[in-house]
């Protein structure tokens, strides 16, 4: 390991002294490999998406029983744009009483919704899919404003996938006997659904679409930093003439979610978020049915016979997609020793081309960190990596002055026991390690409490199947990474949670099958 532990490195010092933030040309010195000149040479002209299509109400209540209602407490909180720290609007604080009202609305809508002919239920969900497609631009811009993700991602991934989820599950509504042949199914009842801030609209779709198709009614609690697209979705539900009470949306922070989890009138809790909160939910939930989609620390395993350039793109996509705010992010890179140097060099070069900045700019690859709290968490874990003596490589790009930002980062010289190799960072920080044999790669890959996803890069198909059969993870991507589809089940092993979302298997999460 080339790093010295003589002087304690700090993140700030590295950025200020060790790197050139302007991205200016680095002159090669004799005997060294010539440095590629990325970033500074070809600046892109700004290509910002207009915000005009979106108008955020200055104050929004909960969506209960088919209309917006004021919170009982009369309390509101602000949601901000993490790229500018500007307040976008205020949303209601959900209290026990608000949750109670929402659960009662869902309960009273249940007989009508679950008793409706399945083909009619399908038509409502198809309508939601269609309206989302029609209003795609509005949702994409709002998602980027409220969450900080690049407009390219919200436009090309989040919104189309959300619509696709509704479209896919709409079609299942009248085909449930085919999914569970010879058995009888019935909806669980009222589903309490708590979703995270990394894919706000998409997670709402993942939760609502299967629940609605199978005849459940819902109380959805969006994350406190990203409530706006869920509230805009309420407008879509009204447009679709979804019967009142079938979907209720209560905004708020942890206490609101806790009230929903502890509510006696809820039959099922579906949660996506951190493993820590997932465990808390399992300890406190009153509902009989529980599905948890929690954290991850995915290994992205690159074998020496892989197509290296393709793998490098996959590594970049795996960890830097959505600022690394992805539970299944490929946050641990395992590279076979013989190609470790090549892969790392290509990765470092490729990283320098990443454009960090205004989420609404169509050139942006990496947007804002979702919140100040998350930025602090990332910085703390990165500092722990430095303290453990790992080598930090960061890009030289400039960062906007306001807002929450973090440079794309890779740690080398990481040990299995380092916190950055064990804990979910949930940011654009990759921990790179090497291995010699496939057995060693498998052992290292499985060496975390998590088991959500993994990546395998090799041109040998038989090796792919051998390795994936040994990986304890719910999703394995082979020669690709971070691929999602409504027809493809998603969910984890071990402390990454249980239950599946997506696909035929995702139906079972909302049905009692007997």
């Amino acid at each position, binding site marked *: 390991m080339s790093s010295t532990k003589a002087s304690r490195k700090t993140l700030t010092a590295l950025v200020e002294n060790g790197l050139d933030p302007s991205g200016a040309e680095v002159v090669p010195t004799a005997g060294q490999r010539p440095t590629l000149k990325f970033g500074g040479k070809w600046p892109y002209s700004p290509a910002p998406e207009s915000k005009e299509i979106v108008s955020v109400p200055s104050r929004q209540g909960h969506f209960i029983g088919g209309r917006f209602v004021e919170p009982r407490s009369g309390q509101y909180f602000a949601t901000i744009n993490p790229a500018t720290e500007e307040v976008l609007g205020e949303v209601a604080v959900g209290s026990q009483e608000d949750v109670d009202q929402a659960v009662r609305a869902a309960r009273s809508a249940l007989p009508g919704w679950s008793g409706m002919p399945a*083909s009619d239920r*399908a*038509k409502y969900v*198809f309508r939601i899919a269609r309206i989302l497609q029609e209003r795609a631009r509005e949702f994409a811009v709002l998602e980027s404003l409220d969450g900080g993700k690049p407009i390219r991602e919200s436009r090309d991934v989040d919104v189309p996938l959300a619509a*696709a989820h509704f*479209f*896919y599950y*709409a*079609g*299942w*509504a*009248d*085909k449930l006997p*085919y*999914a569970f042949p010879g058995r009888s199914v019935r909806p669980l009842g009222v589903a309490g659904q708590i979703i995270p801030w990394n894919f706000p609209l998409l997670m709402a779709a993942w939760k609502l679409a299967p629940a609605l198709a199978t005849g459940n009614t819902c109380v959805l609690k969006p994350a406190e930093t990203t409530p706006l697209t869920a509230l805009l979705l309420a407008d879509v539900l009204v447009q679709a003439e979804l019967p009142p009470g079938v979907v209720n949306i209560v905004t708020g922070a942890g206490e609101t979610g806790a009230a929903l989890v502890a509510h006696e009138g809820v039959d099922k809790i579906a949660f996506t978020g951190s493993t820590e909160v997932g465990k808390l939910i399992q300890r406190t939930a009153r509902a009989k049915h529980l599905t948890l989609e929690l954290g991850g620390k995915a290994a992205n395993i690159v074998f020496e016979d892989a197509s290296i350039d393709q793998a490098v793109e996959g590594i970049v996509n795996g960890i830097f997609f959505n600022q690394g705010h992805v539970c299944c992010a490929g946050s641990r890179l395992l590279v076979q020793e013989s190609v470790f140097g090549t892969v790392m060099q290509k990765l470092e070069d490729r990283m320098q081309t990443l454009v960090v900045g205004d989420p609404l700019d169509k050139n942006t690859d990496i947007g804002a960190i979702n919140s100040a709290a998350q930025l602090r968490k990332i910085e703390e874990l990165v500092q722990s990596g430095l303290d453990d003596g790992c080598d930090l490589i960061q890009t030289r790009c400039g960062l906007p002055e306001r807002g929450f930002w973090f440079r794309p980062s890779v740690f080398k010289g990481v040990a299995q026991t380092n916190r950055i190799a064990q804990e979910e960072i949930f940011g654009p920080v990759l921990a790179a390690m090497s291995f010699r044999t*496939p057995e060693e790669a498998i052992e290292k890959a499985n060496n975390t409490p998590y088991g959500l996803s993994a990546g395998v890069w090799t041109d040998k*198909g*038989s*090796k792919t*199947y*051998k*390795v994936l*059969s040994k990986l304890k993870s719910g999703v394995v991507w082979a020669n690709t990474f971070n691929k999602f589809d*409504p*027809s493809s089940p998603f969910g984890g092993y071990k402390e990454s949670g249980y239950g599946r979302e997506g*696909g*035929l298997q995702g139906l079972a999460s909302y049905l009692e099958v007997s």
Partner: protein
Amino acid sequence: MRTVVRKTYKMLIGGQFVRSESGRSLEVGGVNVCHASRKDVRDAVKAARAACSGWSAKTAMNRGQILYRMAEMLEARSQDFSDVTALQDVENSIDLLVHYAGWADKYQQCLATVNPVAAPYFNFSFAEPMGVVGVACGGTTLTSMVGAVAPVLTGGNTCVMLASDQTPVMACVFAEVVSTSDVPAGVLNILTGIQGETLPHLAQHMDVNALAVHSEDARSNGLLAEAAENLKRVSFWPVGEARDSLAAISTFQETKTVWHPIGL
């Protein structure tokens, strides 16, 4: 009083509304409809074959969206059928199309299997469309017509549809729905005329992979033998008989099994 402009009822071949190349027509219920010839059948098969690779290569979700679009357009044009069938029949057809639209990205999940072979192989089987399917419609309802072609299209096949002899006008109006529904040219071709003339040509055509015959007494007329030369998959569908949608889709699917070694 205004003198109305009448509609010319045409067939749909390769995305174009055409008259029969033979120049022949039949009078049905006071209007003239095309009387398809052997050459029209061949043109339709050619168009269907050309559309095959594109249609089967579309994502299943995209096919579902297009079928759903057909349902949307049929809903919007339901009044167009007021002279030829009851509104209830049109509504049943719309609902049936929505049902099949939902199947497009799901039937595979009900038909495919992972096979636990007793050796280190990853072995799986899945459905693939047969290719060009000839459909001879029977009965008098729009629902039976839609029910005959929807499972064929849902599964990624392209189709040469021979309208029922009794309902050529309905078929022509349906063709107008098809052509305004994002269905790529050639995916569904619709011919009118006399099935007694056209069906044997379709049955003998070497570039047709499967034949679905909807009628009261199809099995007796020797079609199976006529379709034998290229071993067409021939299925007979008694008119008015309830059928299972997944079974209907799988009728027009081949099964492909893949063996892949597992090992370092």
